[in-house]
């Protein structure tokens, strides 16, 4: 029995982990960071993600350790809630509701309510460790508020230079000293500010551009600073001439965090990376998320070997990103040049990349455009090396074309001896590159130009090889030309004016006689290549057209009134297999079919197209949800029993849980299925048994749990809110389970749920 859920869009990760300052736990073993709508807990030694603290419904804007319990952490979110977590076990302890739009960093519990009211416009906000004052910087003003004396002093920075705006600040844990970073690269140490108008400051200068983060170590002996140079600078407090450097950290430092014991530092970088650094200024671990530059200039691709998603990441690099594990596998350095961390500098960027069918060859194009000089273009071809399991540079073609390369593709034949690459450029030519075996000057195989073609000096825009590699279609504005790569003859031209061709795609497998194209004038055309006539055309504004390499299906994204619709169709059939209106808001910029690890056996017509591959797409405006997947989840008995529900549907799950529990002893279909399943595919009996037994033992454990819980609870207000929320939930649960409950009973039920939840999450981690 395999049930099928609806096809739905699921956020598959790739969120920012450098959005806010990371937090190191007291024992320096765990690292917490806000990542989209959840808080991720990483191990600082193994770089693995230990827990995913999910529960917020909007962007998490801050994470902080609970000062009174070192195993707990607060997180605040743009959804207006503050949640308290036990981060070692990944349990949600408490939810606190706030009507304000909370987005400042919470500091300590004592000043909680005060900070909640503060607005976002403050650059940075920090309190001294003794809690005597709180400092905030905004623009050219540094303000220090004292708690004890109930007064605040206001300081104004000198306005000689326009660039000494505050960017960050840190308070010394013991002395009355505030370190501030400035836009001109200077660090100022402010002292003696509790006497009005008699403050003094000293200046440290090493950074050449804005200091993005300063931080004192817990003992106050060192000051750490970082900026766009991607160098971590360690200053000795009171001996500022002595500095330690940790250069080449990869990308601009955005945040610096120090563990409470001062053992580890953690820097967050602009390329979505966290670096864990030992106090002897040595890198010990790197946690790398999906790098998103300003734009994904290379298309999304799937590496045929590792099945990893490939796109341009760090400047000059291609990143290989595992879709299954939401983790970056590795970075391939394409440009192979020292990266100069300086703003306003034109760098080489990877703009195009293509894999051949078997993943033996990778072609990349990098370009660099300076204001008044010519375009620098390099075409590089990389061969896969079995021994090192990575790509090795084989051929560099400097200046393959005179203008930007608009499209590039490999010939798709799996069995052919020769591999061919076609690149089309704005200079009006397209070139075919072929692998040559030997040459008097170079050793081993290398790539050389085989053919240069043009058509009426029009600019070629897209190119596409047919599935068997016998035809090459190249669009020149409104005209599609079909060439034979064997003889380089122009076979035929197809055109459907008006409107320049935007996308071009050959049908696969049984539909390989069709060529599909979308035009800028909202037309989707399908040509039959046997008759060289237009088979059908329909009027829709297709922003993106792509074909599934494993089936004959095609997917078309149509942007329509601010949101995007998805159509999946076969070129031979006029009726779409699947359509989904308003799949997301905004325009879908990039998409890719990724092959599944194991094929699904779905018979439903609407979801059959997802049997072999999954569709991933990248949207334009969703900053924190960049990578989305259409997925049909098979609902198996284990799925029900083990509760492998998605965490996003937590509330739904909570609601239905009591009903499910009632079903279990009744010998439902699910249980039958479980008993009929071959033993070797089941989890071990001890595993199932212990869980099952534990799920029955809830009521007995309740009292102990309550005692433990009451120790932890500190603020009754918070408790109140949590309980009222619990009531709200039980009200929903009542519909299925029982008549009205008393408040005590409701509370009890909440405990039950909490316990169940922990049971679930422990399972999910296993």
């Amino acid at each position, binding site marked *: 029995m395999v049930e099928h859920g609806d096809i739905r869009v699921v956020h598959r990760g790739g969120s920012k982990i450098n959005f806010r300052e990371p937090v190191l736990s007291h024992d320096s073993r765990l690292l917490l960071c806000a990542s989209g709508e959840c808080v991720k807990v990483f191990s600082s030694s193994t770089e693995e993600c230990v827990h995913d603290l999910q529960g917020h419904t909007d962007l998490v804007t801050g994470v902080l350790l609970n000062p009174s319990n070192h195993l707990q952490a607060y997180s605040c979110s743009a959804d207006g809630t503050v949640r308290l977590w036990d981060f070692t076990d990944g349990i949600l302890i408490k939810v606190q509701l706030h009507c304000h739009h909370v987005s400042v960093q919470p500091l300590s519990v004592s000043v909680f309510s005060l900070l909640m009211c503060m607005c976002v416009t403050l650059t940075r906000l920090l309190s001294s460790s003794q809690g005597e004052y709180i400092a905030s910087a905004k623009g050219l003003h540094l303000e220090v508020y004292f708690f004890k004396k109930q007064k605040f002093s206001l300081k104004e920075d000198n306005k000689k230079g326009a660039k000494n705006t505050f960017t960050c600040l840190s308070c010394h844990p013991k002395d009355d000293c505030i370190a501030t970073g400035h836009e001109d690269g200077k660090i100022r140490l402010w002292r003696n500010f509790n006497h009005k108008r008699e403050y003094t400051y000293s200046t440290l200068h090493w950074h050449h551009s804005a200091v993005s983060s300063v931080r004192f170590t817990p003992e106050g002996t060192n000051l750490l600073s970082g900026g766009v140079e991607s160098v971590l600078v360690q200053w000795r407090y009171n001996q500022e001439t002595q500095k330690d450097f940790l250069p080449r950290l990869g990308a601009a430092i955005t945040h610096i965090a120090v563990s409470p014991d001062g053992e580890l530092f953690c820097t967050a970088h602009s390329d979505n990376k966290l670096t864990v650094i030992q106090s002897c200024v040595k890198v010990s671990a790197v946690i790398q998320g999906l790098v998103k530059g300003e734009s994904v200039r290379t298309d999304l691709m799937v590496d045929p070997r590792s099945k990893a998603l490939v796109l341009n990441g760090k400047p000059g690099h291609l990143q290989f990103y595992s879709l299954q594990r939401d983790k970056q596998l590795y970075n391939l350095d394409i440009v192979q040049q020292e990266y100069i961390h300086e703003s306003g500098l034109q760098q080489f960027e990877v703009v195009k990349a293509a894999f051949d069918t078997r993943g033996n060859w990778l072609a990349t194009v990098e370009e660099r455009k300076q204001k008044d000089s010519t375009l620098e273009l390099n075409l590089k071809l990389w061969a896969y090396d079995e021994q090192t399991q990575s790509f090795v540079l084989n051929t560099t073609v400097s200046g393959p074309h005179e203008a930007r390369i608009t499209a590039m593709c490999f010939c798709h034949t799996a069995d052919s001896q020769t591999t061919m690459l076609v690149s089309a450029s704005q200079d009006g030519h397209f070139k075919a590159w072929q692998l040559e075996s030997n040459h008097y000057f170079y050793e081993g195989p290398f790539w050389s*130009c085989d053919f240069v073609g043009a058509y009426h000096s029009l600019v070629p825009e897209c190119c596409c090889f047919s599935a068997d590699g016998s035809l090459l279609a190249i669009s020149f504005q409104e005209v599609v030309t079909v060439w034979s790569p064997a003889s380089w003859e122009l076979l035929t031209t197809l055109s459907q004016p008006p409107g320049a061709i935007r996308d071009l795609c050959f049908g696969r497998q049984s539909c390989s006689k069709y060529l599909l194209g979308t035009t800028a004038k909202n037309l989707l055309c399908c040509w039959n290549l046997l008759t060289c006539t237009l088979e059908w055309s329909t009027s829709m504004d297709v922003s993106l057209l792509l074909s599934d390499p494993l089936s004959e299906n095609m997917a078309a994204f149509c942007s329509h009134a601010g949101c995007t619709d998805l159509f999946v169709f076969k070129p031979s059939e006029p009726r779409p297999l699947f359509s989904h209106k308003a799949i997301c808001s905004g325009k879908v910029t990039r998409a890719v079919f990724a092959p599944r690890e194991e094929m699904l056996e779905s018979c439903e017509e609407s979801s059959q197209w997802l049997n072999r591959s999954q569709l991933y797409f990248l949207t334009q405006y969703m900053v924190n949800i960049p990578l989305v997947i259409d997925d049909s989840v098979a609902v198996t008995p284990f799925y029900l029993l083990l509760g492998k529900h998605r965490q996003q549907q937590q509330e739904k799950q909570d609601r239905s849980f009591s009903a499910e529990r009632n079903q279990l002893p009744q010998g439902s279909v699910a249980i039958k299925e479980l008993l009929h399943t071959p033993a070797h595919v089941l989890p071990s009996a001890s595993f199932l048994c212990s869980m099952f037994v534990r799920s029955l033992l809830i009521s007995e454990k309740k009292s102990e749990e309550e005692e433990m819980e009451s120790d932890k609870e500190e603020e009754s207000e918070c408790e109140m809110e949590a309980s009222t929320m619990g009531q709200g939930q039980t009200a929903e649960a009542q519909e299925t389970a029982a008549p009205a409950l008393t408040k005590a009973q409701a509370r009890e039920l909440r405990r039950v749920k909490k316990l169940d939840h922990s049971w679930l999450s422990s399972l999910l981690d296993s």
Partner: protein
Amino acid sequence: MASFKPTKIQVYPKLGEKVTQDTLYWKNYKAPVQIKEFGAVTNIDFSPVAPHNYAVTAFTRIHIYGPFSQEPVKSFTRFKDTAYCGRFRSDGQLLVAGCEDSVVRLFDVSGKVALRMFKGHTKAVRVTDFTSDRYHILTGSDDYTCRLWDIPNSTELTSYQEHTDYIRCGITSKLNRDLFITGSYDHTLKLFDARVNKSVMTMDHGQPVESLLLYPSEGLLVSAGGRYVKVWDLLKGGQPLVSLKNHHKTVTCLCLSSNGQRLLSASLDRHVKVYNTTNYKVVHNFDYAASILSLGLAPDDESIVVGMTNGILSIKHRKSSEETKEISGQQKRRPAYRVFVKGKNYVPKQDDYLVSKPVKQHLAKYDKQLKRFNVSKALDTALETWTRFRKPEITVAVIKELDRRGTLKNALAGRDERGLSQLLNFLVGNLVDPRFAPVLVPATEMILDIYQSVIGQSPVVDVQLQRLQDLLEREIGYQQDLLEVLGMLDTMAKMNTSPLTPHPPT
């Protein structure tokens, strides 16, 4: 953490000659030995037996040289007039030579006086050869006749008068004693059989024939005349096989390498060309100082002997294998093996605790300076004399890297007279090189912008700037000419091709 990535030096394909097996083979000769003869060297013939002496016919003498001697081993001087075509018999004992005075003389190699004199021709005898049975002599003369003589009786056997112009070349078959071929200025090649009294095959070369060559198998015949070298298939009745036109003056001499794989042709255009005999492509080329009249190749290609119109005999000996090694050994003088092995071949024992040392990255001097952001110093390093002249690509790569870093202006500015003239000197040498121009042109503009205020203060710099200006003006002139040619070619190409036809690969 990631280490410093060194500056990438672009590798450019070497311009000029391609390095092939042939190039290596034919370049492996020592510097030529030059011997001054009395007049133009018209013929060189190698003795087929062991020491492989060679007879050099020049003016009124025939000198015989040993394989490594620079003095003649033997001289035959009893000629009344210019001698022609001194050739050895297949046993190396006898030598025959024609003469301007129409007498053919036969010498014993060890003797001095002619053994026989064959009189009968009425004009200069330019062609002499022994038949393969060793008892007859073939001669060809300017009186349009070719004759066969009997050595023991010193009598004329047959005379053929079929050519209508001077006979200037001829060759006997090494396999058949009755067959011989003559080439004449009447543009024909004729194959004669001594058993019949007329030619059995006639081929038209189209130019006055200067030289003939038979392949060892004797299936193919090579003839040279005018600028052409033609290959004929004798087994197919004299069918032309290939016509080669690689010289731009008359081809005077032909020769086959010892293994029969390469054909050499010498010409008045002062070149010797080496052809591959399978595809007849030129695989190598030798240059000489004067027009070449004769060419000889020692067995096993041990030496190449070339005779020229100015009377110079040039002999190139093949380098022995030891010499080759010696020279290459001198070039790559490296530290001894033990220097590298020292301390690295230690095998750790079982309980040893290994402390790994980070591998130190080796960086070039300019890279070290770039790493420290010392941009001016890095440019100074890249402009050092050796780098500037021997490896201009390094200098260009550093300039490019500085430009990428946006600090080229800082690096170029603030130079004194010496530094600036050094920089300008480099630009004058490399600015118009198409490989470097994209990098150097913006740099030059930058230099001119920076230093325009100091023009006229230093005569050294002014001279360099003047040279730069001249260079640029010349280059602009060339570019204009080229564009004009391109325009002409385009119009011609457009007339023949339709716009749809694809371009040839570039």
